[in-house]
């Protein structure tokens, strides 16, 4: 069991949990968190290198490092693991954000409990990304969701009880759909009389889910994951939840947890039920297309920094789901890039907002101004984050969005010319419009918050970022820039997953 590298992605967070549990003061907790997250980053790097080596050596299996340990034989539940380029990208993202998050919560009150829950959440996240067994996946998914309630409810601010409850209940509602869908998949995972399985790879290989059932199970799973991916109209947990969550939780949640939604939509809904994906994608295309512009428009008039960012997340994550539904490899690659990009970018945003809030004790942009003079480091970082968000070339947002647009335009034109309607094309163009609206709200915030005269004289006494805050933000900025400057590396990493076989099934 311990010969497989993937299992360490769960073991390390568990060890960290133990370490935090045994720690006696905040120094030890910090040490555990930093060492552990560095170990996770190292592990994901090693995994990436090994994976690339194997691919280079000509491995063509859809997933590498696969392994399976029986857990509950009567229902054929296994702890089955395996990764492809997408999972690796997500694992890298998660480890980076856990790292940055640990630094961002350097001075959190009641650190022990906080880190315990945070690490439990990370365990769930990592477990989710490495598993290829639907049941295990779902279990890790829930493990990642539950700590959120406590983290927001106990360490949050504002209407935290309301927000925590809302977030948890809406996500739980989503997982209720999801569970239905997963169980449905399980019961159709084999032709009549065959051995049922939860294993994604086997199900995909068998392709035995009847079309009628697919049309039922696809919406279930898509909505189930879509709730976590902040799909319109199931996104309202996101603004409240993010606004009330403590910094590191917002980072982890927007940075990683929301990616679970997109990842799940691809890995389960589309991958396993290609027929229904083809037939029903238009419903969700409309919904996600709406999310993209809708989130952006809403962000234009909000005055709370976290609300703005949460709505911007709705817009960006909507783009992820939107691109996935385009069902072509370019757009899907773009979707994964957007997940990476948005994960890093929004984590950076939330980290910065948390740092600013920690100093000014307000998140209202109307009550702040001229931060550039007071907190130059944080402000510059904020501008960079904003530029990444509005898609400045050289930062990650641009490549992700462009890949998505090129891919979905391709899909849209193909549809249009073959007489299948212009829905995809129209929504692609609508989604393109979001780049303008994004610019509007980002610049509005930057202008009001950072530039202009100092609004509050008390703010003049604030001090700029401390070293741990700098570590956190610089890590994220470097990653954002790395994706933005060398996109082809990630593109190739992700692209290998979208083999022609997948799209052969889709008929594209």
């Amino acid at each position, binding site marked *: 069991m311990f010969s497989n590298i993937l299992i360490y992605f769960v073991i390390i967070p568990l060890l960290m949990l133990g370490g935090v549990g045994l720690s006696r003061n905040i120094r030890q907790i910090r040490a555990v968190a930093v060492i552990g997250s560095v170990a996770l980053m190292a592990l994901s790097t090693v995994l990436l290198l090994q994976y690339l080596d194997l691919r280079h050596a000509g491995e063509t299996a859809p997933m590498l490092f696969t392994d399976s340990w029986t857990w509950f034989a009567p229902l054929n539940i296994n702890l089955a693991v395996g990764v492809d380029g997408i999972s690796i990208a997500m694992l890298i993202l998660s480890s980076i954000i856990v790292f940055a998050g640990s630094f961002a919560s350097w001075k959190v009150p009641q650190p022990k409990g906080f880190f315990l829950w945070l690490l439990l959440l990370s365990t769930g996240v990592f477990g989710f990304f490495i598993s290829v067994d639907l049941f295990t996946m779902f279990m890790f998914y829930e493990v990642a969701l539950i700590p959120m309630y406590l983290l927001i409810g106990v360490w949050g601010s504002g209407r935290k009880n309301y927000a925590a409850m809302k977030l948890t209940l809406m996500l739980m509602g989503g997982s209720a759909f999801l569970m239905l869908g997963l169980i449905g998949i399980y019961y159709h995972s084999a032709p009549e009389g065959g051995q049922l399985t939860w294993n994604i790879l086997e199900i995909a290989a068998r392709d035995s889910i009847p079309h009628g059932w697919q049309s039922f199970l696809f919406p279930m799973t898509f909505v189930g994951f879509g709730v976590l991916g902040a799909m319109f109209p199931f996104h309202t947990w996101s603004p409240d939840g993010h606004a009330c969550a403590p910094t590191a939780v917002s980072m982890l949640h927007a940075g990683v947890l929301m990616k679970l939604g997109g990842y799940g939509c691809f890995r389960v809904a589309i991958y396993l039920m290609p027929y229904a994906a083809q037939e029903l994608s238009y419903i969700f295309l409309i919904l996600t297309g709406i999310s993209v512009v809708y989130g952006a428009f809403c962000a234009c008039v909000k005055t709370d920094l976290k609300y703005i960012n949460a709505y911007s997340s709705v817009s960006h994550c909507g783009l992820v789901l939107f691109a996935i539904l385009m069902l072509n490899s370019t757009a899907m690659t773009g979707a994964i890039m957007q997940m990476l990009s948005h994960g890093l970018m929004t984590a950076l945003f939330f980290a910065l907002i948390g740092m600013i809030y920690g100093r000014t004790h307000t998140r209202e942009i109307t009550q702040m101004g001229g931060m550039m*003079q007071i907190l130059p480091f944080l402000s510059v970082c904020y501008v960079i984050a904003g530029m990444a968000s509005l898609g*400045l*070339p050289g930062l990650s947002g641009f490549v992700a969005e462009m890949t998505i647009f090129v891919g979905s335009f391709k899909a849209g*034109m193909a549809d249009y010319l073959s007489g299948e309607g212009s829905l995809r094309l129209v929504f692609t163009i609508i989604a393109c419009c979001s780049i303008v609206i994004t610019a509007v709200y980002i610049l509005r915030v930057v202008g009001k918050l950072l530039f202009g005269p100092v609004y509050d004289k008390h703010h003049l006494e604030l001090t700029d970022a401390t070293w741990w805050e700098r570590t956190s933000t610089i890590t994220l900025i470097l990653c954002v820039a790395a994706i933005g400057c060398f996109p082809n590396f990630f593109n190739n990493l992700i692209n290998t997953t979208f083999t022609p076989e997948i799209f052969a099934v889709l008929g594209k």
Partner: protein
Amino acid sequence: MAITIPILILAIPLFMFFFLGLFGMKMSHKLAGTLGTLGMGSVLVLSYFTAFQYFFSGLDIFVNEAGDRLQYLVFDQTWLQFTEKLVIKLGFLLDPISAMMLVVITTISFMVHLYSMGYMRDHHGVFEHGFQRFYAFLSLFSFSMLGLVVAPNIFQMYIFWELVGASSYLLIGFYYKKPSAVSASKKAFIVTRFADLGFLIGILTLSWYTGTFNFTELTSVPVEGLAGVTQVNIGTAESIRNIFATSAAPTFMGASVLTWALVLIFMGGMGKSAMMPLHIWLPDAMEGPTPVSALIHAATMVVAGVYLVARLFPLYLMEDSAMIIITVVGALTAFYAAMVACVQVDIKRVLAFSTISQIAFMMVSLGVARPEYHEGLGYMASMFHLFTHAMFKALLFLGAGALIHAIGSNDYTAMHGLRKSMPITHITFLIGCLAIAGIIPFSGFFSKDEILSSCGQYDILVYLWMSLVAGLTAFYMFRLYYLIFWWKEHVTPEGHHAPHDQPWTMTLPLVILAAISCVAGFIPFGNLVTWNGEPYDFMAHFDWSVASISLLVAICGIALATVMYRKENELPAKMRRALPALWTWCYHRFYWDELYQFITHKIIFGLISKPLAWFDRHIIDGTMDSFATLTNKASEAIKPLQSGQIQMYVFYYLIGALLLGGITILCLI
């Protein structure tokens, strides 16, 4: 040609940006400025060398046997691969226009770097706050602009297009403590972003049909019988042409897809080049420091739209309707901007509108250029005007900067009669004015004359219209000149320094640029830059009748300005009273800003965003919350059943048990 030099041309400004941006605060102002200027100077040398090599070395990679200039791809690296065919590459393309643009950009940029050393400090020689940042941004801008012009594919152009926009944003908002600067920078970014949306969709459409982003493949000369510019695979060009020529290509709202693509791409150009109705950001962008206005908003970035159209010129040639749109937009903008420029008070605003007008000239020139008229004279004229305009407009802006620096105000009302106290500025400014007015032998005369003559070839109406605008140009420039340097004697307000010429760092660029403006007209541009690389002697196309008419028009404009503004008199006020409506509309720039203000605030914010946000909070979230409330209510409703009163439990139990019992009995019978 070695790859080192082109790489360095891009790498040095980028490096300077990071170096000054990260470590600038640690070094002294002077050191940072010097480093930035030296960096730019080395880029200048390298670019001149490259351009010289390209134009005059006669190497067979640059010129073929027939003497046609070729496109030469110095390097081309894959940056992001979408599909097998659609690949974004980062590269360096040398051809006549990119070589010319290298010269223009580095020249102006270097002048501005040098000039800023003097400008960005107060009268006591104390450097402004954020001086290092300023140089870092200038380097970033130079990098992006150079990357834009050497782009071998349309997507690289888009990438640098965006970078240019961002660095322009940073530079306009340089005085970030000033709310007006912040909002101007925001406006500039958003308006151009909106235009870029069209650009992006245009690129997507074009690339979807052609399967390529590369200019060489997109623009290989599609017209038969003319020699190809490049060494490209003719098959590709043919197939692209066929794609659009065949009836299989769909139409959308009555226009072919190619037309749409080209018009959308032109929309991107309209945004950057401040064509009506996307021009509103440029006058506001004058909130930035004056050297920035000279660099970005006069000489380089704003001509990116012209450059874009010129780049895709062979494609535009295939669509006459797109060309007509370009011509019409250009002509309207030129006239509009000239009208507005006649009444502005802020000297930078006058120059800004003059820039809009002049760029519109270039656009019109491109729009009327056809291979059949003087072998595409309009194209060459446009590029020529781009070149000369960059020089004299930068000169005018830098001169205005010197005035503003000396006086401390942007309004000519605070200036008047400065010709004696600031002689160098006066002379160079006059040269700039003469150049822009089109007086022989200054550079503007030649380029503008060719634009007019190509207009005349195309349509007499366009010609007359543009001649009128040229006359207006001469008028408003000399109005400005007289109001600044003549009108009445200068009175220095109490407590102010008497105005005087600025230090050498500021006057040297003025002198250099003035010198260039004097002689640039004699550059044999037809030999260097033509639409298909085929050189010709443009003097052969020189039409003395057109030239003399345009000269006459310019002189009329100047004469009128002389009459009205040379000495303080009542004439301007009378004119103003005679045409109050016209004056008001011009003064308020035909209320474009108010219109936009209305659209953005009332419609976008008020009618879309706010209701959507309300909808989100109250309807969507309300629905979600109402699920929770409903659950709560239901729970409240059945809560009394669990009253804790055992008697009620007994009662419920009893009733239940009796019901069950009763049913049992009834069933048993």
